[in-house]
């Protein structure tokens, strides 16, 4: 657009142009984020072993093949088990550390705050490799336990960060008022502070569960002979003839993830709207 034409255009025309530009840009971002997975889903129904155009006709045979592959279901079950244990443990550690770091004054508070945040800025590769060496040096056999522990290490600091941010935002007066009105410290925590933290706890649970369920690199080093789902995907991608099966199961898992995650966020949003809280604060907190 030249300067001349922009002057000639009325402000509404320019508004329309910038709206069009904005829409194109957002569509581009949408494609970058979701386009490839959507195309993969379409090709999971393609009657060809090659991942690409042209579309040779629809088939469900790759799904049938995937259903008959026991390793897929075993690895999915392993990932679910690990995430199901890692999530509550991380929430508990995140909650206790967030309360201690935001509600108490003590020596070393700054140091410990930094220490708890540190796993968030250390590359996962480094944590994975270090854990492998640590477990082998301490003779802890690699397996579900070592996967779980290393997931807790990378995930609970995220819960700490989200919960601390929310605790800073909460009105301390509410807690104080509860104490003034005769609540014991435990009652104030249980009846006032915790209920206000519930949405953040729920959001943390969504993040921590996905981090654990989706984690590849840390599990890769700490799993030993166990197969989590991402490890199964990674090792199967090396075998060209099994790729269509990977497309099928990836599509299925992604669809379930979209349904569960969107459902969870929507439910959370509705609860927060009813309480007059703003879900954007939680997203920013991450």
């Amino acid at each position, binding site marked *: 657009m030249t300067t001349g034409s922009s002057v000639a255009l009325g402000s509404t025309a320019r508004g329309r142009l910038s709206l069009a530009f*904005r829409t194109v840009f*957002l569509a581009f971002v949408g494609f*970058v*984020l979701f386009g*490839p*997975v959507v195309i993969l889903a379409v090709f999971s129904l393609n009657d060809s072993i090659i*991942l*690409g*155009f*042209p579309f040779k006709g629809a088939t469900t045979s790759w799904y049938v093949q995937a259903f008959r592959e026991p390793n897929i279901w075993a690895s999915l079950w392993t990932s679910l088990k690990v995430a199901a244990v890692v999530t509550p443990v991380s929430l*508990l550690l995140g*909650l*206790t550390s967030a309360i*201690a*770091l935001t509600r*108490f004054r*003590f020596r070393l*508070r700054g140091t*410990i*705050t930094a*220490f*708890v*945040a540190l*796993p968030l800025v*250390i*590359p*996962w590769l*480094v*944590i994975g*490799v*270090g854990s492998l*060496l*640590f477990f082998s040096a301490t003779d802890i056999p690699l397996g579900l336990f070592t996967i779980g*522990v290393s997931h*807790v*290490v990378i995930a609970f600091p995220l819960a700490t*960060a989200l919960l601390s*941010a929310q605790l800073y935002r909460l009105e301390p*007066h509410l*807690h*104080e008022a509860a104490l003034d009105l005769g609540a*014991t*410290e*435990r009652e104030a925590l249980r009846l006032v502070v915790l209920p206000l933290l519930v949405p953040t706890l729920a959001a943390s649970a969504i*993040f921590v569960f996905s981090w654990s369920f*989706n984690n*590849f690199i840390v599990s890769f*080093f700490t799993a030993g002979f166990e197969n989590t789902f*991402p490890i199964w*995907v*990674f090792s199967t991608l090396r075998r060209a003839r099994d790729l269509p099966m990977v497309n099928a199961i*990836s599509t299925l*898992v992604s669809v379930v*993830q979209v349904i569960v995650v969107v459902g969870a*966020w929507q439910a959370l*949003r509705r609860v927060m709207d009813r309480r007059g809280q703003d*879900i954007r604060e939680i997203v*920013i*907190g*991450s």
Partner: protein
Amino acid sequence: MSDAQTPAADHADTPVLGTGYAGKARSRGSFSAFIYLAGPVGVLLLFFAGPLGILALYSFQERSRTGDGSWTISNYVNALRPQYVETALNTLVIAVLSMVLLLVIAYPLAYLLAFKVGRWEVPLLLALALSDELNPLIRIYAWRTVLGRNGLVNTVLTQLRLIDQPLDWLIFTKFAVVVVLTASWLPYAVIPLYAAMKTIDRRVLEAARDLGAGWWTTFRSVVFPLTAAGFLATIVIVFIPIISDFAAPALVGGTSGRMLASVTEDLFLGRGEWGIGSALTFVLLAASGLVVWFSYKLTDLSRLATHR
């Protein structure tokens, strides 16, 4: 864990809530805080500091299938072999290109989200979160449908008769790694920038416009200075995982897209060269640390952490 409840039962352990309690709590706070922190800090000391410590130790020891564990600095010397240095430079080039591309996309996106999309703001934010909650390996692998030999780009360009042969530099190259890393980390790049934008009062932007500032002047003297902290936070949050990324080079990188993580993985799991592997890992860690330290110097990181 019952740790969480025990101190709370004690009336005298008053947490600091306002300034009024501070004096009393200072003496008793330490004990309560200790009980709350025993679990989390214990876990980190054992399973986080432990692994990093062992890694540091092994990087100074003779550790391979034949090595015996005597002290040495040869691992760091060996880490400077040309093939590793070349991979390190390749990693740096990929990381910097991805960062530039990320900021070019994330910055305007954060601006649109914060000021321009109206009621679409929350759905779009949740879409960003959703994309991050899909399996990263699947997201990376799925790019083969777009960049592959028979992928979307090649098919469209061939159909339009713009090319005769499929482009062969789209996949299994540095280019592919940069594209995929950018797509993977976009949500993490947008969020800190968006958070920074949200602190800008809309009226400040209106005032700038009323005073006759064009969009460039507004950007240069209002928006950018107010979001500089978010800019740095984005660099820290995204640069660290990118330089240590393993999956993207492994799935779409080919030989020209090789990065340090692939070499490290091979040293540990393939060749059993734990000493050199540890040294290289530490070099990676030092690079990350340098970036954090640099950003920390430029801005107050603790303020960013709580967004106040």
